[in-house]
């Protein structure tokens, strides 16, 4: 199959769906790759590097759409591109079918198959083609860089000869992929990071990234998680509590990064005008939800706004495109994984298997029919696991009580054991001759010493221990030595054999132990 990547038509879009690296991998699957001239220029891949990777560079978009059987793109097609689609062709791109019904109908009419990268279901098998996550990751990283660009101070706290610098305080709202990436980036720059999310199960992830989770004290335990690992709208009471918490933070934090989105709805307003007013001059708000209306009241999409009190509110919507090289590399890899799943036999033939959860979920038009929305996937989505209830810390009294109880039961067990053991000894003493009891004392004491000594043996020396105990259990040779001079021939023969094998045991055991121990070397 011929797979072609045209130059992106949307204004300001610098990404490209095919990189020289992904082209090489696609060729291994038996495909042929095409690229429109100049398609990768803005992402840092010129035509020559494509040619070196074995990609055919095509002169015009029209020629590419004509030649390619599979067209891979970043942005959804515009009208002109949709008209170029033909029956039997496959288009793979971000499509947003729920918001673009007219375009969906237009594509269906052409008879082409459209695979929407934004519709890849969130199951673990499909993570490698989850382009939304890869882009969100970049957005989160870039948001912190953008904040640093607009913020007049260091992120990290320092003590310098010229005075002490406090660390920047960053608040991240919404701990999805973008939020977590932002937390990671900000903490690694040295900032003090706090984070909030309506889904309490992400608190562990937040803490693992090195941020503090802002916990809401709310009776109906905050729980806004929905299947698929996305957030759902919250109740008015909950919202009030949440805003109250943010208001408290507003005067303290230097940088706010909001990433709160609810699928299929406008972004919730979480950072209100009065909170911006409370912030210190020079503080920065980065609104990653600007495309969906923004989480902050002051946000204007694609613009940098400065409030009356000198707070910078950034509403850019094109973070991935601002890091076009990285974004293209990741997006092209996601596309490549999708094509790998579409080419199961690695023979360059695409098999559109509508039984496959991932392919079915992402396909929005197929064989002149609209296949959106997809049925729920057969495999359960990730991230829906409920958090475990926190175990109650035992109070000091309870701890002490349980300790004394454990001690008591231990004492009881020991006393019972001693009593039973003593009784048995007494019984044995009644029947056994005195000479036996003398030996028995030696035996019991030796067992005790053995237990004490062996517990201290290092685990790593257990094999040498077995070899050395093997050797000393050859002490049975003494029994044979005592008998070998007997007057009876049979006894002498039996004893002689015993001497022989016990000697093998002793010598073999000790020598092999020495060999082993000599191997243990310190670095």
């Amino acid at each position, binding site marked *: 199959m011929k797979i072609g990547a045209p130059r992106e038509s949307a204004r300001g879009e610098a990404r490209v769906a095919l990189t020289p690296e992904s082209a090489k991998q696609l060729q291994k699957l038996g495909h042929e790759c095409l690229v429109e001239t100049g398609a990768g220029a803005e992402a840092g891949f010129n035509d020559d590097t494509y040619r070196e990777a074995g990609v055919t560079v095509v002169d015009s978009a029209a020629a590419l759409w004509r030649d390619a059987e599979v067209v891979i793109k970043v942005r959804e097609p515009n009208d002109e591109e949709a008209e170029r689609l033909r029956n039997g062709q496959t288009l793979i791109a971000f499509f947003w079918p729920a918001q673009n019904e007219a375009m969906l109908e237009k594509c269906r009419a052409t008879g082409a198959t459209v695979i929407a990268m934004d519709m890849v279901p969130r199951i673990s098998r499909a993570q490698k083609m989850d382009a939304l996550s890869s882009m969100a990751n970049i957005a989160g990283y870039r948001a912190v860089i953008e904040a640093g660009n607009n913020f007049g101070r260091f992120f990290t706290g320092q003590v310098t000869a010229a005075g002490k610098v406090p660390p920047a305080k960053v608040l991240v709202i919404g701990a999805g992929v973008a939020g977590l990436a932002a937390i990671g980036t900000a903490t690694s720059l040295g900032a003090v990071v706090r984070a909030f999310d309506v889904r309490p199960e992400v608190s562990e992830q937040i803490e693992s990234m090195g941020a503090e989770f802002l916990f809401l004290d709310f009776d109906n335990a905050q729980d806004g998680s929905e299947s698929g690992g996305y957030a759902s709208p919250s109740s008015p009471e909950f919202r009030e509590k949440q805003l109250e918490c943010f208001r408290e933070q507003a005067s303290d934090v230097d940088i706010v990064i909001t990433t709160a989105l609810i699928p299929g709805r406008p972004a919730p307003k979480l950072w209100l005008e009065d909170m911006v007013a409370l912030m210190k001059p020079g503080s920065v708000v980065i609104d990653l939800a600007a495309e969906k209306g923004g989480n902050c009241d002051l946000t204007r999409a694609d613009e940098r706004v400065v409030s009356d009190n000198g707070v910078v509110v950034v509403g850019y919507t094109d973070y991935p495109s601002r890091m076009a090289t990285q974004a293209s590399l990741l997006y092209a890899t996601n596309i490549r994984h999708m094509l790998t799943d579409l080419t199961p036999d690695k023979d360059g033939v695409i098999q559109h298997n509508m039984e496959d959860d991932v392919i079915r979920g992402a396909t929005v038009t197929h064989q002149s029919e609209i296949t959106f929305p997809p049925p729920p996937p057969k495999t359960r989505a990730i991230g829906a696991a409920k958090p475990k209830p926190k175990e109650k810390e035992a109070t000091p009294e309870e701890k002490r009580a349980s300790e004394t109880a454990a001690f008591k039961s231990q004492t009881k067990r020991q006393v019972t054991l001693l009593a039973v053991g003593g009784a048995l000894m007494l019984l044995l003493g009644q029947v056994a001759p005195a000479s036996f009891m003398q030996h028995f004392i*030696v035996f019991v004491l030796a067992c005790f010493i053995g237990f004490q000594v062996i517990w*201290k*043996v290092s685990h*790593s020396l257990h094999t*040498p221990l077995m070899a050395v105990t093997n050797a000393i259990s*050859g002490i049975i040779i003494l029994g044979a030595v005592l008998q070998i001079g007997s007057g009876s021939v049979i006894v002498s023969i039996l004893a002689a054999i015993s*001497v022989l094998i*016990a000697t093998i045991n002793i010598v073999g055991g000790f020598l092999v132990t020495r060999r082993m121990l000599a191997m243990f070397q310190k670095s």
Partner: protein
Amino acid sequence: MLSQGFVSAAAIAASVLFILSLGGLSNQEKAKRAVWYGIIGMAVAVFFTALGPGIGGYWLMIPMIIIGAVIGTRLARRVEMTEMPQLVAALHSFVGLAAVFVAWSADLERRRVLAERAADGMMQEFSAFAALVATKAPDELMFLQVEVVLGIFIGAVTFTGSVIAFGKLAGKVDGKPRQLPGGHLLNAGAAVLSLALAILYLNGAGFWTLLLLALLAFFIGYHLIMGIGGADMPVVVSMLNSYSGWAAAAIGFTLSNDLLIVTGALVGSSGAILSYIMCKAMNRNFVNVILGGFGGTQGPAAEIEGEQISIDANGVASALNDAESVIIVPGYGMAVAQAQSAVSDLVRKLRDAGKEVRFGIHPVAGRLPGHMNVLLAEARVPYDIVLEMDEINDDFATTDVVIVIGSNDIVNPAAQEDPNSPIAGMPVLKVWEAKQVFICKRGQGTGYSGIENPLFFKDNSRMYYGDARESINALLPMME
């Protein structure tokens, strides 16, 4: 001829030296000195006992000792470290057999002394042991018989059990659990029969009872160990180690020799503790292991999601080059593939590149307690980077790359996450907490317990299929 006083003093010295020798194994450096204590103790014990009163037959004893020493030396020189479990099992069988012989002889001597006493009532010149028997009162002789029975029974079980364990470990006997029809009922029957024979013997029946008793015990040892699978061998070998000690102690009682009793008790308790540690590490009790097989599950196993994703040498190598900390978790598969020196080369390269490399050893990894440590030591891996499970288990979360080589059940997260799993509750190495886990494995398949391992399906796991040695060797040239 030395007097009895000399012999006793030597016995005390030897006992102390043996205890020091075992105690010295608490660390690697002391151990090298401690093994000499053991050797000297043994030399003192044998030398002074052999020169003691009433000992004869030197013309037979000395050649036997020399031949035995030559064979023992050759064995110890030749054995490969991967064959250590077999060697240990084989040596146990010798102790068992010697115990049976000595106990038989003891009874023959007893009969001879009694016969002489009945014949003329005159005490002629007896050799060492016979002379001792001659001084015993009737009730002491009764106890002697009980001790003889114990010595024969334990010794015989140890003998055949060790022979079978040797066969299984050496691959000469099928490693799968095998039992005759009737299973443990046969063992129980044989045990009851042995008890009956013992009672007959105590009531004055002839020497044939002891021969039959030994045969029955041989059967029990054979059948018991045949029913235990290969991976449970660490427990079996340490159990047999314990038995060989108890057999020696029983013989010590028979011969009224305190040195034998002390040494037997030391060895017996050592084996018992090792078995206990092994069982604890598998979260199973001793009876369960010996009677064989894993218990039934308590419910359906949790479903496993995801897929096993394989990776090639390039991928593993680049991850290793990027990593700062690496933990290697070896298992029996590493010993089977003889991959330890390849692993050692890899470790050297990684350490030369300034990376932190450590090993995590599960107590039941391998076929003998501490087996992995010896293999790694042989391959010149320094022992201070080889850590026990408890020492390293909390460090996985901060580790970049974990390489699992030929182990399966000991890294199975189901043991902690799935209460219905047959191995639920078993302590395992938490490798899945690391950023990335590479599993070096021959092919898809389950471990000894026969249960699926969810680790292989985790998002941060990658399967690196192939023979362990070749796989690791393939990585070497790619290390920067």
